[in-house]
């Protein structure tokens, strides 16, 4: 078990190196002066200034020098370090006129908040429904779940998103888009509200402001609904088919032959074994959501990382987009590590291999 985890951990630097090389390679499609956004805020205007910037930051040097500079940054005339992704400096977003890292810092907590609230219902309800559908195959729950899931998979996010917007915002005015109401926003930005975690819902609870918590949830409800519904469909189908397969396994018959009550057969023998592909899927879904759900965030004007990435991409702000890609790569690696470790707990066969 320990060796298995250590081996997985040793893979992390290798993967990180691969990700950085890939992103760095893509940066090379930019001209040297476009790449200066990695180090300085604004593009120099005169030819002379351009040359000076290129020389100072080694933007015409061999690739390995540039790669190293990109990793650790360059010290400028004032003795300040500029750039250096290892120090968390991803360069400047000239469109958003702020450092990319700051953009991530303000936007990512919103996406994380949304993800946490969307993932919990997806996983819990998805697994529950999937198991029920499999246990009562061809029963009412199963038929309903299948219709529900086929509709969910076939619904494009933007259609479903617009539909719920029209019903719940335009007509009923229950759930507004955006992040917070104006009154709540004023409180959050004031001094009396401490940002402990940057996650609005959690901060609101920690500050004892239940009204702000509810306001945040109210704004998140439609994106959560959209993301849950679309992801439920996949989750339910994978859980159902995996569970059906497991229920046909001979050790399930063995468990019955032992004289176990049927609920023990299902919940102690079949379900744990059926969870293995479900965990993989959960990992993928969490990563997908954390990477920013571009369409959902755009439809609901939710200020998450996906919306920021879409804006940057639309204005050809390549340095920002690649900065997000790099960040997303890190998250992917961490999430995969988590899934691998989780596997070892769920499946004893993995521990040895």
């Amino acid at each position, binding site marked *: 078990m320990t060796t298995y985890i250590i081996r997985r951990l040793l893979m992390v630097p290798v993967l990180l190196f691969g990700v950085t090389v890939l992103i760095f390679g893509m940066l090379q499609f930019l001209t040297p002066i476009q790449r200066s956004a990695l180090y300085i805020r604004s593009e120099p205007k005169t030819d002379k200034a351009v040359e000076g910037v290129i020389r100072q930051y080694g933007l015409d040097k061999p690739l390995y020098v540039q790669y190293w500079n990109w990793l650790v940054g360059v010290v400028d005339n004032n003795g300040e370090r500029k750039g250096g992704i290892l120090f968390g400096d991803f360069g400047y977003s000239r469109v958003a006129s702020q450092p990319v890292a700051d953009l991530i810092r303000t936007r990512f907590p919103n996406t994380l908040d949304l993800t946490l609230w969307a993932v919990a219902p997806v996983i819990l309800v998805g697994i529950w429904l999937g198991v029920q559908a499999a246990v009562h195959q*061809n029963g009412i729950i199963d038929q309903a779940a299948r219709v529900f899931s086929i509709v969910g998979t076939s619904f494009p996010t933007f259609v479903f998103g617009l539909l719920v917007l029209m019903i719940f915002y335009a007509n009923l005015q229950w759930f507004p888009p955006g992040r917070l109401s104006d009154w709540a926003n004023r409180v959050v930005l004031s001094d009396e509200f401490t940002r402990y975690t940057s996650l609005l819902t959690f901060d609101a609870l920690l500050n004892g402001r239940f009204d702000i918590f509810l306001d945040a949830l109210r704004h998140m409800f439609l994106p959560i609904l959209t993301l849950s519904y679309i992801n439920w469909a996949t989750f339910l189908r994978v859980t159902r088919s995996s569970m059906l397969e497991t229920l046909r396994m*001979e050790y399930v018959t063995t468990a019955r032959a032992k004289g176990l009550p049927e609920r023990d057969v299902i919940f102690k023998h079949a379900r744990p074994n059926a969870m293995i592909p479900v965990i993989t899927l959960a990992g993928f879904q969490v990563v997908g959501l954390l990477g920013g759900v571009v369409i959902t965030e755009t439809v609901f004007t939710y200020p998450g990382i996906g919306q920021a990435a879409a804006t940057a991409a639309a204005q050809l702000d390549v340095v920002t987009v690649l900065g997000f890609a790099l960040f997303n790569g890190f998250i992917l690696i961490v999430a995969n590590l988590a899934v691998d470790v989780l596997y070892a707990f769920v499946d004893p066969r993995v521990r*040895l291999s």
Partner: protein
Amino acid sequence: MNAGNDNTLLQVNDLVMHFPIFRGVIQRQVGAVRAVDGVSFDIRRGETLGLVGESGCGKSTTGRAILQLYRPTSGAVHFEGVDLVHLKGEELRRMRRKMQMIFQDPYASLNPRMTIADIVGEPLIVHNVATGREVEERVQHLLELVNLNPSFASRYPHEFSGGQRQRIGVARALALQPSFIICDEPISALDVSIQAQVINLLEELQDEFNLTYLFIAHDLSVVRHISDRVAVMYLGVIVELADRDDLYLNPLHPYTQALLSAVPIPDPIADAKRQRIILKGDVPSPVNPPSGCRFRTRCPIAESICAEARPEFREVKPGHFVACHLVK
């Protein structure tokens, strides 16, 4: 069949197991796989009844229907005088203590997420036979009984070989001290060298605990070795049932004769001299079996009566039952 006497442990009467086939949008039943279609036999306390036949003839289904792992379509199964077919829930669960099963595939029949101790000990816990330390001790004892090192208890099934896994399956089946065990092709997934080990183990355990076996197999020599009586199945019905030696030396049903003539003899000269009966054609579909005698489509001696009436399963000699019109 003859009425059960005190010595009868299990009595199977006209057991039928049909699996319905559904088709179309509204899932209408369009037919059924007649896996087991009217099977009757007794098993006496302490004996081993061998059940042989080709793949797909319904041997395993018979075993599972007896244990109510499939609920039979009709027929009766009496175990120690109790009708199992109409038992439900808690009552059936309690009966399972007395009858266990050893499965064919030692790789698929052990839950990969449980340790050996959990697999073998679980029946003791769910039936409130033992708790805590006592479960551990019983598991250790059971592992010793099947010649496994008791210190293996904390390991997982994938760490064992096929033969070891099958012995774990035997230990699991023995945990509740059952009186009856169905061995569903317990050795056909194992290497030949390991097969003997498991067979010998099963025989030793039978002597020690006075176990009764229903031994399902397609290997005729193994069945001859281990069984007291043997039943031959073809397409969901039993065609012949007799004492082992009687059946092997003096088979009456043409299917049994063909089956036995195909057993290889480890002597090239004798093997070359004997007459082998080669059956023509394939086994008919159990969805739509032939009328009358099910074997008539492949029978070398079939006559017109065979297509008209289903042959009665009758006792032609004391203890020797045959279902064939042409056997006098």
